[in-house]
């Protein structure tokens, strides 16, 4: 799922300077699960902003709302249609996609991101999320025993570990991190598919992936 992290308050306050009435929008899917933009975080950020504004003497009134999924046009329209009229700007606590969906629908009102969308990942422990996929568009997990070197190797090497792997299979750059290619070797060894290590992988043609990506279902 998409993992995001809240921006520091200074940055958010600078975006909102000059606006008296804003709409603060949370999202109930990915950012709720990673504790960044759910209904609870909306309440916390709203309290913080009110405290900050009353501290500096300018009043700021905040309308709060939470959309089922900010990346679905119908859901955004249904939830925010009336509230948008009463505000001057919208502060979205959704991921980057959510911010842009709201911006597309309500073009007349400026929309600001309250979160930094960081990566696609999974929970490692309670409250800790870790990146697993870099969405490179050309998945090579077949050859690497289900461990993606593009993301989990600090240098993104495609062909075997770099020379600097530390003792105990740790990464040269970050001693706490496991070297992805050591993990790949061990897993392939366990599955008896070590011959895949011999495959030479040409450098990825990142230009081939047209940005922004677009997928069209056959039956669309």
């Amino acid at each position, binding site marked *: 799922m998409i993992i995001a992290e809240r921006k520091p308050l200074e940055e958010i306050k600078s975006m909102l300077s000059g606006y008296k009435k804003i709409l603060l929008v949370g999202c109930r899917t990915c950012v709720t699960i990673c504790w960044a933009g759910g209904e609870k975080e909306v309440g916390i950020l709203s309290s913080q902003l009110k*405290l900050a504004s009353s501290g500096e003497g300018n009043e700021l009134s905040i309308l709060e709302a939470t959309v089922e999924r900010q990346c679905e046009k119908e859901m955004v329209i249904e939830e925010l249609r009336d509230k948008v009229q009463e505000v001057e700007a919208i502060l979205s606590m959704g991921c980057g996609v959510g911010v842009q969906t709201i911006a597309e629908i309500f073009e007349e009102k400026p929309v600001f991101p309250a979160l930094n969308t960081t990566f696609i990942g999974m929970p490692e422990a309670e409250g800790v999320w870790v990146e697993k996929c870099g969405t490179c568009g050309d998945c090579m997990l077949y050859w690497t025993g289900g461990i993606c070197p593009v993301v989990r190797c600090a240098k993104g090497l495609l062909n075997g570990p770099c020379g600097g792997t530390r003792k105990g299979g740790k990464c040269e750059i970050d001693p706490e991190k496991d070297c992805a290619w050591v993990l790949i070797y061990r897993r392939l060894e366990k599955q008896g598919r070590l011959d895949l290590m011999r495959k030479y992988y040409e450098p990825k043609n990142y230009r081939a992936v047209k940005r922004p990506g677009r997928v069209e279902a056959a039956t669309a």
Partner: protein
Amino acid sequence: MNREDNKIVAFCCEHSAYQVADKAGRMRLHYPDNVRIIRVPCAGRVDVQHILKAFEKGAAGVLVMGCQEGACQHLTGNTRAKKRVKYAEDLLKEVGIDGGRVKMVNLAPDMAQRFIREVKEMAEKIEGEMRR
């Protein structure tokens, strides 16, 4: 609700801190009367949002009072509360309210003196802040 108010909101766990407040009262140990005690089933029930809302509504200080570490009836209630108070403190620093205005206190049901000392400490901190 203007800023001069000096209310201290104390979220008190009913297994320890709330009974300590009762004991302090029964021993007629007097403490500043700007404290408002809210009874909660466990310190772990208090969320960052409650702390921030208390400040938003004009509280000058917040105390989250739970059991001693290792003696929580719900095992992790007070340790979680400690983490949340730390997070709330950072959020408040971002907003310009610092100087230890939110604090986690660990009490056992018989520590009336410690309860009084913590409340007086918070009240003095607020008085000091107020005069500046």
